[in-house]
């Protein structure tokens, strides 16, 4: 069983209507894009969305492991 937590930031949080959620994956593993499809009823990840797993940038093909912290957010605008 793979349990992950998901965080959404900024405009993507507004769009999702939530800041975070916990997810239990049915199979042994899932990629980031599979998780996104699951939480959005089958949609694909919007262009320019940034993805991090355990606070490191990664891409949509990354396979998630139990306990991972996944985050989706728009391009950063700090500094």
């Amino acid at each position, binding site marked *: 069983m793979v349990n992950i937590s998901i965080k959404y930031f*900024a405009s993507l949080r507004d769009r999702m209507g939530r800041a975070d959620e916990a997810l239990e994956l049915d199979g042994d593993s899932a990629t980031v894009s599979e998780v996104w499809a699951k939480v959005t009823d089958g949609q694909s990840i919007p262009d*320019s969305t940034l993805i*991090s797993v355990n*606070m490191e940038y990664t891409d949509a093909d990354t396979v998630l492991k139990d306990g991972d912290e996944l985050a989706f*957010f*728009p391009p*950063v*605008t700090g500094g």
Partner: protein
Amino acid sequence: MKVIVQQESFAPGQVIQTFQDALPRGKHGGVVSFVGTMRDFNDGEDVVSMTLEHYPGMTEKHIEQVCAEAAERWDIVDSLVVHRYGEMFPNDAIVLVAVWSAHRANAFDACRFIINYLKARAPFWKCETTTAGEKRWVEHNSKDPKAEVSDSE
């Protein structure tokens, strides 16, 4: 190397001086700093305040990574980054990057590197409140946070 992500406003000159006073004496010949300031307009509209959201933990981690990388690439004495989050107002300092070195070329290069990569990688998002009371996310061009960056934009 010190990275501070804080909600409170700060006076860049004071923060630099306090940090410098604690450095080992005589090792650096100077300090190069960049201070980014909040503007009071954007896209033609007056902005009354701005709220910076961040990803606690990831933000600090990535700024520290960038500072560590700068310290590997250039011979510097020390570096300091202060970045605010939360609500701020026009002319507030948003970010400070300061680098001390024996030779100023290294301080210039390292300071520029840190602010460029911080802007590309550190997870912060600006949300402006206009005089009309409208809140809007500041959208920049999409950028790959893993790519080489420049400060030409």
